[in-house]
């Protein structure tokens, strides 16, 4: 299986935040959901992929090419959707077509207008006047009009209603039916990803917390529930984001520890949302205990 995107040991530090040793790959023909809390480093990672941010160390390959050395060649084959429009607001669709066409070898105005029509976007309105959902579809239309093989979306559905979100997932599904293309889809709306993603990378605090197939993620972590007295303290240590309340507790736990779990406790599949919440809870537990020590 060939990888369309390979990130190895990506390190990038800003003031007060750092991406540490980020490593993951996306094979051809699949969708990867890139999830994590706001501030976990998803956008920084994407900006590093696009060579819009300077990497401190590490290597990013796209289509087998280096993300810095061959940035221009890569961008010919890359479609990008951001959470906000990157085009001049006073232009209309026709002007945008004329504006972008000279930059891409494989730009097809025919394809662009076909998509615009299919998405129901008006020809002569200023794109600045489009609704958020329309702007997103416009970016998708641009991304699909120059034979892009990899689509990268950074929070494309934030602020969109469920209908628009569903429409986007439909478009991505159709895009991926050609198995030479891939999608990297960063979002904090995990339900979008829950169903359609093949691979998932979970980013937390600038580090990769998990990367692999969605099935692997669900097989690896479970939600543990039960009464506080039924859980041994050693097992409790190994829980992630332990949440105790008067009549019970719930926590995230690695499925490797299944043998240690007494029958009184119940386990359940963990949704991606729950995983993110428990990881975050674990962080605040650690912070609290640090403060206690001080």
């Amino acid at each position, binding site marked *: 299986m060939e990888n369309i995107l390979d990130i190895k040991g990506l390190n990038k530090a800003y003031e007060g935040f750092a991406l540490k040793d980020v490593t993951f790959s996306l094979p051809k023909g699949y969708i990867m959901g890139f999830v994590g809390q706001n501030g976990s480093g998803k956008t920084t990672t994407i900006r590093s992929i696009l060579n819009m941010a300077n990497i401190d160390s590490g290597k990013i390959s796209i289509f087998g090419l280096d993300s810095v050395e061959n940035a221009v060649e890569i961008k010919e084959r890359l479609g990008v959707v951001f959470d906000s429009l990157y085009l*001049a607001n006073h232009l209309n669709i026709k002007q945008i077509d004329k504006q972008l066409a000279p930059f891409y070898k494989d730009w097809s105005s025919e394809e662009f207008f076909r998509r615009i029509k299919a998405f129901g976007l008006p020809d002569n309105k200023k794109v600045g006047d489009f609704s958020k959902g329309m702007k997103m579809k416009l970016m998708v239309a641009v991304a699909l009009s120059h034979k892009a093989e990899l689509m990268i979306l950074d929070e494309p559905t934030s602020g969109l209603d469920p209908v628009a979100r569903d429409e986007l997932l439909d478009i991505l599904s159709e895009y991926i039916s050609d198995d030479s293309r891939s999608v990297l889809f960063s979002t904090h709306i995990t339900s979008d990803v829950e169903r359609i993603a093949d691979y998932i990378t979970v980013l937390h605090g600038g580090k990769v917390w998990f990367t692999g197939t969605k099935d692997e993620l669900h097989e690896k972590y479970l939600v543990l529930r039960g009464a506080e007295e039924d859980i041994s303290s050693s097992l409790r240590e190994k829980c992630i984001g332990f949440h105790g309340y008067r009549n019970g507790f719930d926590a995230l736990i690695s499925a490797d520890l299944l043998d240690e779990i007494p029958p009184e406790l119940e386990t359940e599949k963990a949704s991606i949302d729950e995983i993110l919440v428990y990881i975050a809870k674990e962080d605040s537990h650690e912070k609290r205990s640090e403060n206690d020590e001080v």
Partner: protein
Amino acid sequence: MKNVLKMMRFDYSITKGIGGKYAFYFAIIFTVMCLIGFFPAALGFVVTPFALYAPLETVRKGDFMKIYGLLPMERRYVTKALFAEIAYPQIIGGIACELLLLVTGAIGKAHLYPAFLQEKLYDDNTQQLISTLGMKYSDLFVLAALATALITIIVLFFYMILEIKGETVALVCCMPFLIAILAAAIGYMLANDNGAVPTITDMLPASTVLRVLLIIGSFAAIIAAEQLIGSFTVKATAKKEI
């Protein structure tokens, strides 16, 4: 270079919709004003090109900047194009100004106009305007070239600082220059009334050859500045993040 032209066309396709067209309207207005006698209007050509690139700054911020990271184009051409699209329209404006001055001057002398317009071209008011400053008609040519060069180079500097340090720093740096020039101009006009300072005619070289060299030199200076400032900015912003 092909890439620079591509980026220039890209940038102009943006300003076209937000004021670029005014450049052409102004050009027409100034030309008409010249032909009906107010020929110092030709000097308006020195600043008409502003309309072609100044509006770019209203767009080139925030989310829009991501497009420069998206397009398959090396970042340095984006920067080079910025300076080219300032310098070359200014040069063209300056040359248009010179041509218009030449034409109106020639028409005036060639009696091609009907009599009353003839009078208009060298009428009292316009003559007065020039003579108050102690200028001759031919002084305008040199003045136009020098003004174009000065203004363009200041603008190029402004954009250089803008690219490297941002809008506020650029304004803060350039304001003093503009104020100084304005003060010098006003000061000169006031002082000139009292005959305290040499007239413009006296300050400029007497020989035509030197004057022509001064004009050509001004335009050459613009090109040189564009190249130098452009290259410097490219190097200084090479690692800038979007």
